């Protein structure tokens, strides 16, 4: 949106926070002060310049457009808001997200979506190492590639990767589903390729639709998940832990 249209003359115009003028704390406090049913449903953040913790802990269904790149933990603990970063994100974007959605137009650094319990995280570029580590129900869709040790100890939710995955994908995975369209450098302990059944194709189509991905078919992906051999300690598996 061109800068000339940013004003507060009408109720539907976004509330604009310029982080060159106002502190991060003022932005986050204003977001936390939102009452249920507030008319201030559109927010715009200017000049984030790699700031940490932009729009963490938002718990109202508002739309937040961040114009630029952010640092650590953007959108952490998000509960119901729709955050779009028009740039790249530093480590831990969407960490422990509960619901809502976060879209990163650029790349994401390490541990994107870590421990997330719900909601949708879309990364339109690449994500680096440990993407979806310990995910607990979040859905993550990465248009590009993901780095090593992604979905480490993933417990539930879905990780969809249109590109390639790095080493040790899904190490010590529990019940999350991993869908990778490209090559996987290596699978981690107890992570195996699994059959793509009709219900998985349907699930994946739904995820691609929600993430706005077009021109890609679920049948192009492979599914990976837990072999379930490490759930209970067995002395024969001691080397795998």
């Amino acid at each position, binding site marked *: 949106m061109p800068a000339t249209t940013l004003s507060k003359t009408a109720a539907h115009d976004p509330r604009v926070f310029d982080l060159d003028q106002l502190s991060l704390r003022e932005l986050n406090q204003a977001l936390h002060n939102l009452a249920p049913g507030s008319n201030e449903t559109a927010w715009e953040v200017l000049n984030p310049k790699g700031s940490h913790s932009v729009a963490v802990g938002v718990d109202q269904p508002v739309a937040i457009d961040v114009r630029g790149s952010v640092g650590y933990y953007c959108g952490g603990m998000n509960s119901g808001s729709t955050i779009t970063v028009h740039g790249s994100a530093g480590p831990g974007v969407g960490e422990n997200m509960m619901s809502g959605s976060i879209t990163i137009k650029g790349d994401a650094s390490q541990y994107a979506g870590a421990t997330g319990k719900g909601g949708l995280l879309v990364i339109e570029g690449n994500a680096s*190492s440990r993407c979806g580590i310990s995910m607990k129900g979040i859905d993550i869709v990465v248009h590009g590639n993901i780095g090593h040790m992604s979905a480490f100890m993933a417990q539930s939710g879905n990780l969809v990767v249109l590109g390639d995955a790095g080493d040790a994908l899904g190490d010590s995975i529990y019940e999350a589903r991993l869908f990778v369209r490209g090559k996987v450098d290596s699978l981690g302990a107890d992570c195996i390729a699994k059959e793509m059944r009709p219900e998985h194709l349907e699930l994946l189509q739904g995820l691609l639709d929600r993430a706005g991905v077009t021109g890609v078919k679920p049948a192009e992906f492979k599914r990976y998940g837990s072999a379930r051999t490490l759930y209970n300690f067995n002395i024969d598996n001691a080397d795998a832990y």
Partner: protein
Amino acid sequence: MCGIVGLFLKDKALEPQLGAMLSQMLISLSDRGPDSAGIAIYGAPSKNEAKITIQSAKPDRDFRGLEAELAKAIGTPVTIAVKSTHAVVRTTPAKIDEARETIQALRPDIRIMGAGDVVEIYKEVGLPEAVVDRFDVRKMTGTHGIGHTRMATESAVTTMGAHPFSTGADQCLVHNGSLSNHNNVRRELIREGMKFETENDTEVAAAYLSSQMAHGKNLGEALEGTLSDLDGFFTFVVGTKNGFGVVRDPIACKPAVMAETDQYVAFGSEYRALTKLPGIDNARVWEPEPATVYFWEH
């Protein structure tokens, strides 16, 4: 934690601003490490001149009269420019090793920060802004430089424990992380004849690279060796007389962002450090891959 930065200029027009650009980058990462800070600047080479950066906790006592005493002892003209607790000693390249030994004989409390044809190294306890102001780093010109702000984990908060560490002519290194096999590697390097000033893990990494390059490897090959010979967490940024390199360990949990334009290559622990660089909005910005060596040379 620690914050590290590096800047390698391709565009000569930016050289007068190197000190200012690198200072701003380092100050932006102050909250990654409040204990001490340091900067190495690679200036313009001068044909008949090499330099040693020295430091003293008592500069009034140690630097007074040193210029004349040193010139007399080595039989060659010497100039000494004092900057707070540091001073830059300049003399002919042929006499630089002799000058170094003589300084330590004349003034046993003086510490050598680094030496070479072009490098100057300034480091002290304190926040980056205080260190940059103390040594007037913003006014310095140069071709490339590296900087560090420290949150100490492996050794004491002292001037000598601050980064950059320099263990060879015009070579220096900054480090975010901690090494676990540094005692062993230090012992091996001491056996080779390397000398150490501290118990610090990063000094071992610097000495390891100096040793590799002394054995004929180039910067890239020396950095490659760290991946098999050093154990622990590291993101290293390294400067040599005409080069600049970056390597991260295979786990790569220490953050790193790089940017490249036609004018420069820049490194920061975080993107925050890069936001005020010219043309950053159109730069190629990427996260260096784990266990992958990147280096540039003039």
